Structures are given as structure tokens and as C-alpha cells.
């Protein structure tokens, strides 16, 4: 237990940029997801086969959930939020594969994803509401609340990252401790619980991102 979960193992350097294990795992996941998407969407037809129906129902369900959350057309947000959800499911669950650790169990990946969400809130807010109306949203309910609104904007992104990191990392740590105590068969219920935690955290991260973006575009009250 001497390995700190707040530090990451550096594998090699490109120039002066250190490349950690987390980054390599993320690259592998990105490549796998891209190739998988390319393969399953390669020959879509009007008379859909079993695979196509499965993919379409997943995409349609994500779109329906976003539309129900935001009370508006989900099309502009589907690429970001859908990709976020699918990537997070893959990233949280790849810790199950022997030899791999979940990229979300080290602090950089959740922080980077939360930064993407933080920036996209402003991007969608300015694009849909216009700059003036979006900035005026920070003065509601009255201008005294301006510092608190800015503070809330920062802290909620921080807690978004910390929530994902804390859950996935503590999950992996519990499994590691149980493996060290009793290696055979005992860790299996904990790993099964880890699958549930990974799926729920991916869902919560996506839903909270949708809620934040909805607050940014003024579709729902913050």
C-alpha cells in the first residue's frame, strides 16, 4: 500500500512530455472505441439487422434521456454527452480486464473530462443564448450573487472530477486490499459491485454534465 493513488506511473517520455500509463490506456480505449464504431456503422441499411437495431436503440435512448433532462432538442448535445457516456462506461469498466487499470482511477482523466464539461457549458451557453444574455445569467437572482455564481461554477466542476475519481479509485483500492487479504473467489462480489459503481458513475457524470449545460443554456434553473 505504498503506492499513492494521487501519483501516476510514468512509462516513457516523448521529448520532454512524460507519458503515463493512464494516457496509454486512454489511447488504447480511444482507438478501440473508434474502430468499433467504424465497424458497426460501416454497412447500415434501411432494413436493419440485429446489430444495427442494438446500436440505434442505444443512441436513441441517450438522445431521449438528454431531451427529457433539458426539455429541448437533444441534437446539438448528443455528440458530446453521448461520447462522454460511452467513453466513461468503457473507461470505468476496463479495470475489470486483467492487467489494465481504469484511466478514471487516476486524477488526470476525470479532471480533463470535467474541464471539457466546464468549457462546453460556456460554449453552448454563448452559442444558444448569445453572449449578453448568457453573462446576464450570472447576475440572477440579483447582482449580489455574482461572486457566488462564479464560485459555484468552479467548485461544481471540481466536485464533478473528484466524484468520479474518488468512486472509481476507492473501488479499485477496495478490490486491491481484498485481493491482498484473501485472493481466491472472495474479491469477486467486490468486483461485481465495481461494475455497478462504474456504470452508475458514468451515468451520473453524464447526467450532471447535461444538467450543467442545461443551466448554461437557460433550459433549466441552476
Amino acid at each position, binding site marked *: 500500500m505504498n503506492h*499513492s*493513488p*494521487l*501519483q501516476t506511473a510514468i512509462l516513457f517520455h516523448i521529448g520532454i512530455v512524460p507519458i503515463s500509463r493512464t494516457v496509454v490506456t486512454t489511447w488504447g480505449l480511444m482507438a478501440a472505441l473508434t474502430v468499433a464504431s467504424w465497424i458497426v456503422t460501416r454497412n447500415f441499411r434501411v432494413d436493419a439487422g440485429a446489430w444495427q437495431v442494438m446500436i440505434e436503440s442505444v443512441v436513441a435512448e441517450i438522445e431521449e*434521456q438528454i431531451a*427529457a*433532462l433539458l426539455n429541448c432538442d437533444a441534437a446539438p448535445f448528443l455528440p458530446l454527452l453521448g461520447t462522454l457516456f460511452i467513453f466513461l462506461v468503457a473507461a470505468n469498466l476496463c479495470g475489470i480486464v486483467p492487467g489494465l487499470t481504469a484511466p478514471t482511477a487516476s486524477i488526470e482523466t476525470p479532471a480533463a473530462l470535467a474541464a471539457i464539461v466546464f468549457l462546453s457549458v460556456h460554449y453552448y451557453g454563448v452559442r444558444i443564448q448569445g453572449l449578453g444574455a448568457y453573462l446576464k445569467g450570472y447576475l440572477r437572482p440579483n447582482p449580489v450573487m455574482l461572486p457566488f455564481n462564479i464560485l459555484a461554477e468552479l467548485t461544481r466542476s471540481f*466536485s464533478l472530477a*473528484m*466524484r468520479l475519481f*474518488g*468512486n472509481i479509485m*476507492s473501488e479499485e483500492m477496495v478490490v486491491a486490499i481484498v485481493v491482498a487479504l484473501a485472493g481466491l473467489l472472495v474479491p469477486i462480489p467486490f468486483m461485481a459491485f465495481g461494475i455497478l459503481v462504474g456504470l*452508475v458513475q458514468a*451515468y*451520473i457524470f453524464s*447526467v*450532471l454534465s447535461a*444538467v450543467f449545460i442545461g443551466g448554461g443554456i437557460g433550459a433549466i434553473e441552476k
Partner: protein
Amino acid sequence: MTVQMLSIIGAVVAVAVGSISPALAEGRAVAAAMEGIARQPEAAGSLSRTLFVGLAMIETMAIYCLLVALLLLFANPFAR
């Protein structure tokens, strides 16, 4: 007592005490949502979605305590 011993005690207290109130709060939230679903089964979808968001918010408090414990154990600025 050395700084290391104090940090270990601090980490244990942070997690143990800090998870009491989120546990109680999550229990109350789930109980209220169950009651709502029992009264209005047709609202189960939107209720459970709101419940998940609310639980995530409550859980953040416990996660912060975990983070404080981790900082004390692995990134303690006063040790060494």
C-alpha cells in the same frame, strides 16, 4: 506522537465521521423518493433521475472526506 501517526488518526477520523451525515442524508433522500414513487408510480422515471443527481450531490461530501484522508496519507505537506 509523530506527524505520521497524527495523519493516520486524522485520516481515519475524517472518513469515519465524515461518512455519517452523508449516509443519513442519502437514506432520507431514498426514503422520500420511494414514498413518492409509491404514491405516483407514473413519475418513477423523472423521480429516479432527480434522485440520482441528488444522491451524487450528497455523496460529494463523503468523497471530499475521502480526498482529505488521501491527502493526509499520501500528500501530507507537514510530513518530512
